[in-house]
């Protein structure tokens, strides 16, 4: 059973190993966050546009024509 300190130390290369994994977490988290945020923003935009023109039929979302 290795101790937490030696686990974090990674044989003296902790900075490299945790740096790489930290960046991976940032990239995965960042992509997820920005993609979901942009989807929410577009949904809100569509809702606002549809509310502004109530005479238009409420088409299924994403329909362009």
């Amino acid at each position, binding site marked *: 059973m290795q101790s937490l300190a030696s*686990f974090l130390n*990674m*044989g*003296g*290369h902790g900075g*490299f*190993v945790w*740096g*790489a*994994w930290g*960046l*991976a977490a940032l*990239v*995965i988290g*960042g*992509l*997820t966050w920005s*993609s*979901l945020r*942009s*989807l929410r*923003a*577009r*949904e809100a*935009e*569509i809702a606002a*546009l*549809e509310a*502004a*023109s109530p005479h*238009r039929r409420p*088409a*299924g*979302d*994403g*329909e*362009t*024509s």
Partner: protein
Amino acid sequence: MIQRFANPARFNRLAHTLLPWFAWPAAALIAGGSYFALVASPPDYQQGETVRIMYVHVPAAWMALFVYSSMALASAVGLIWKHPLAHLSAQAAAPIGAAFTFLCLVTGSLWGKPMWGAWWVWDARLTSVLILFFLYLGFMALSAAFDDPARGERSAAVLALVGAINVPIIKFSVEWWNTLHQPSSVVKMSGPAIHASMLVPLMMMAIGFTLFFMALLLVRMRAALLARRARALTMAGVHAAQAAG
């Protein structure tokens, strides 16, 4: 078959159904793969603990190539058959591919320093991946460079196709040139030259990254379709105001 999903409303329904099937397995595989990669797998007999960088570096590199290849394929479909979702999917994929390529380059650098003694070398593998990163950036810049989105997407699609020549160059760079970068240990004619204790977490991360890409692609395509619809609604509003006024 492809044409069936040309209808955005139908695509949206399909995306809605598929999303959890990609997102949850992706999360489970990445979480499980991380545990095996960081805790349960052994250190390498030559590289020690730094081999744990491999479990993010190699899947990120595979994604960099996979996403670019799918982008080039979608661009070809868009240019040849004018499928309405093809360019949209290529544009939705580009930032994800660029992010994976960036992750590959930086984690490679963090692995290179302790193993080779250098953050960066102008070796064929590293240089060709750096070019891939610039191709992604060029694709995104070109897509957004025109007032007419259709012109932007066609120009970017041509760039994606021309840049596709770089994909086999990256793949075979470690065989064609004498590189500092090590050759492939997994994708070999003779089968993987890597022990199961390392291969299993590596494949878990790789499949996890792939499913994560698919889930994200669906989310981004949905957002792009909504943006297209918002543009159409705004235009319709402008025309209605002009007609009334």
